[in-house]
């Protein structure tokens, strides 16, 4: 009996095995294509999404409110047949440098896409990291125009820029003035001096003259968003003898500002807010009857859209008694963009995912406007904002007319009469 050996051509030597593995590796590298550093990623299972929010620090209240938008997303995505996402949470601590390092850490931990981070300064820092590492970032909330003016390929923003916010704010203010048949002749403009507040202040100077507004700015007062006392700022505003208050604020300062208005016995004709703060749940619950009246001009949801009702139902289940607001809507929509793109891409490869995000065309969304799609700079130019008023613990949409559910109340009820 002879033992048959395999023909030389069929035998696998150690050398040929190593060479084969090498060739296969090179081939796989080419297949992986243009992924940065040729990292090969698995194309199945949930997509790992790093969600960066200011969960602590002076913006913690808003960051945690944004998290509610994350909390309700999974059930809605499942019902809509969208793929599952694994959320990796990151805390920016309301700090730009921490935001940058947390973005790097989340990517190091395997995040295949990033979402965040409410604050323009922090989002700009995260965008730099995302672009450098080649990981798609979908910005939920941040308005500084510069973020999408850098020529980034991996950065997308489903939120209006400061000039877009101002354009819509002035349009909606005119609508409100028309509806109530009154308008302030002068305003005091109070704003935070962070990236967002400064961008808005610059934008007002450039854009307001084009809108022929009925009021002039009697005084501009900037302040630190982490301020612990706004008594001097409000005293200065009161001394300007203006009819109304135009504000770009955050949450804590919006509460401080309102308390000072009450203490210093000044009820302006209206509080016209062009940023967060006045519509936040914590503001409404903390200040109670003193929270009634401010009108916010901000990116907002369309109460008539079907998905809005779904969000309201899920939010009521997850967080009873909390009003749906910008933080939930735009954080949810950022995840919606990622999930929708992942479904179409069928791949976790960052470039494929970024290309899919760039091709986004979602019409069944929540925010006011025709839907979500991105221009060459990664900006959703379709997003439109609204005006809404605090009324007895609820937020009612008053403009634009196609999204309105109530007529605005004007002027502000005097604070002393509320006690």
């Amino acid at each position, binding site marked *: 009996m002879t033992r048959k050996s395999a023909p030389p051509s069929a035998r696998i030597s150690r050398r040929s095995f190593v060479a084969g593995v090498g060739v296969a590796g090179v081939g796989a590298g080419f297949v992986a294509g243009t992924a940065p550093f040729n990292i090969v990623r698995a194309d199945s299972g949930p997509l790992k999404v790093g969600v960066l929010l200011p*969960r*602590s*620090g*002076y913006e*913690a*209240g808003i960051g*945690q409110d944004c998290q509610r938008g994350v909390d309700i997303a999974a059930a809605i995505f499942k019902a809509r047949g969208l793929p599952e996402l694994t959320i990796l949470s990151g805390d920016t601590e309301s700090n730009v440098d921490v935001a940058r390092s947390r973005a790097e850490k989340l990517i190091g931990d395997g995040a295949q896409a990033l979402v965040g981070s409410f604050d323009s300064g922090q989002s700009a820092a995260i965008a730099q990291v995302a672009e450098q590492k080649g990981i798609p970032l979908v910005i939920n909330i941040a308005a500084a125009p510069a973020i999408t003016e850098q020529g980034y390929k991996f950065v997308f923003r489903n939120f209006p820029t400061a000039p877009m916010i101002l354009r819509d704010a002035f349009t909606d203010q005119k609508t409100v003035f028309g509806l109530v048949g009154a308008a302030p002749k002068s305003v005091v403009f109070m704003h935070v*001096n962070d990236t967002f507040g400064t961008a808005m202040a610059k934008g007002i100077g450039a854009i307001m003259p084009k809108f022929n507004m009925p009021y002039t700015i009697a005084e501009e*007062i*900037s*302040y*630190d968003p982490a*301020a*612990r*006392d*706004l*008594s*001097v*700022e409000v*005293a*200065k505003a*009161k*001394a300007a003898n203006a009819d109304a208050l135009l504000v770009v604020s955050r949450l*804590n300062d919006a*509460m*401080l500002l309102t*308390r000072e208005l*009450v*203490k*210093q*016995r000044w009820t302006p004709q209206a509080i016209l807010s062009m940023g967060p703060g006045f519509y936040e749940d*914590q503001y409404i619950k*903390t200040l109670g009857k*003193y929270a009634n009246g401010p009108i916010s001009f901000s990116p907002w949801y369309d109460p008539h859209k079907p998905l809005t009702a779904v969000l309201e139902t899920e939010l009521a289940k997850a967080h009873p008694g909390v009003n749906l607001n910008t933080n939930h809507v735009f954080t949810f929509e950022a995840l919606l963009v990622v999930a929708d793109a992942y479904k179409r891409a069928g791949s976790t490869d960052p470039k494929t995912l970024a290309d899919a995000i760039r091709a986004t065309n979602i019409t069944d969304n929540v925010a006011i406007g025709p839907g979500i799609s991105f221009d060459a700079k990664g900006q959703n130019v379709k997003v439109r904002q609204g005006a809404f008023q605090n009324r007895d613990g609820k937020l009612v949409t008053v403009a634009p007319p196609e999204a309105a559910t109530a007529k605005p109340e004007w002027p502000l009820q005097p604070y002393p009469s509320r*006690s």
Partner: protein
Amino acid sequence: MPLDVYLNVAVGGVLTGLVYGLMALGLSVIFGVVRVVNFAHGEMMTIAMYIAVVLFSALHVDPLILLVPIAAVLFAFGYVLQAALINPFVRRPEHTQFLLLVALALIISNALLIIFGPDARSVQTSYALDSMQFGPIIVDTTKVYAGAAAIVVTAALFAFFRLTLVGKAIRACADNYTGALVVGLDVKRLYALTFGLGAACVGAAGTMAVLVIDTTPMLGPGYTLLAFVIVITGGLGSMPGALLGGVLIGVTEAIAGLLFTPSAKSMFAFGILVLVLLFRPQGLLGRRAA
């Protein structure tokens, strides 16, 4: 701008400055006697603020009533801290004291963050949004109470150091450490007592501060820095100096905010500090080093 606006802002600045002064007083007392710079000062104030917030939430007890009990709790905390932890470091190089107290500050602020979370918490008393009107001047009621409490506590502390035997013994320790040992004073116990009194001042200041500002775990470093600015301006180790420094910083910030941009008001407080360091390094009411 009308004169009454300046008056309103100046009065607000004086009242805020009194609370600042009370907080800084604790730092000044501790340094004046124990010669240890308490880098966990702001964090100790934050502890007092959280105690006030928790007791108000749970039992609806007004912070004005809580002032004495919380000062007593902080006294005990300070006494134990000095006796158990800081006393061994009193004669060690200053950098080791610095590291010890900075570590303590980090532990306190992070423990508060873990326990209470990052949200701002406030005390909503029945008079939280009240104000008093005196002619053209409208004064925040909570600031009036806080300022008045600061004056009472400072006066009590001043009387303690001037009129009681223990107070005199503590001053003897501050004036001549070796002499105090020679005449048989229990210096370690007196140091612990002094640290406790400094902590009690911070406790009282923190309890009053909750009436004026929201409480967050990370307030500490800002207030530690503010306390340093105040005591250096007023004179390190001088009790009246701490109160004067507090009022000066409070009024400067308020008026600067009114005359210039409010976001730059802290710059003027630090400007005063620089001027004092240049022209009167011992502080406004401090004693020149021998």
